[in-house]
């Protein structure tokens, strides 16, 4: 497990049915690009989050393939359409096999 990885998500707690809302996500992750060398001149191997998905009640909102050029502590902002009350699930996939996830509930009101 990559250490110190913490997700942070900004999503509204409530929305009108059918409303489009702004979602912001951040996750603390080094995103080791594979371009750096250590003190002895050896290449530090790549170890990044390579995929991010956002799903709402099982339907996909966005699915991002990420490369090493995404900055440390990857940040995304996008729009999601909320048809009904439900759970928004955010998932990040790490090169090392770990999967980080957080869920935000959205009510209709």
């Amino acid at each position, binding site marked *: 497990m990559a250490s110190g990885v913490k997700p942070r998500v900004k999503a509204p707690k409530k929305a009108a049915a059918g409303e*489009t*809302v*702004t979602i912001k996500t951040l996750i603390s992750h080094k995103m080791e*690009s594979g*371009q750096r060398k250590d003190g002895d001149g050896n290449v530090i191997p790549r170890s990044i989050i390579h995929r991010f998905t956002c*799903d*709402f009640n099982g*339907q*996909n*909102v*966005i*699915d*991002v*393939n*990420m*490369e*090493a*050029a*995404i*900055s*440390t502590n*990857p*940040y*995304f*902002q*996008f*729009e*999601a*359409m*909320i*048809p009904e009350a439900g759970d928004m699930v955010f998932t990040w996939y790490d090169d090392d096999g770990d999967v980080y996830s957080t869920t935000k509930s959205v009510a209709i009101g």
Partner: protein
Amino acid sequence: MEFSRRDTLVLGLGAAVATVLPLRAFAAADEAIATFTGGAEAGAGGITLTAPEIAENGNTVPIEVSAPGAVSIIVLAGGNPTPGVATFNFGPLAGDQSASTRIRLAGTQDVIAIAKMADGSFVKAASTVKVTIGGCGG
């Protein structure tokens, strides 16, 4: 500052290498574009790429891509060691076809965005970002 002969030679070689590198890098970007579009031509219009004209720091450059009606948008950095940045695939519950993120740019270069539209056509936008480096880093 006094330069030894060795220093001057190394500096000279460094400058020569720097001139050759970008040509190779842009070739890699073209390859990535061809893979995404399957060789099809990408037209202009219908896609917006927002990036700063001068990025204060190449580590964290904010960009935004938007292409109403797109299925997916690929972002490439023509002058990076590897050109791939991200591919945004929009699902059925996407509120619109736009996304913002922060990227790493190794130096001044073109950032390229290509959108695949619902009808299978492609549109492209590019933006030159000057990346400044140097100063008292601390």
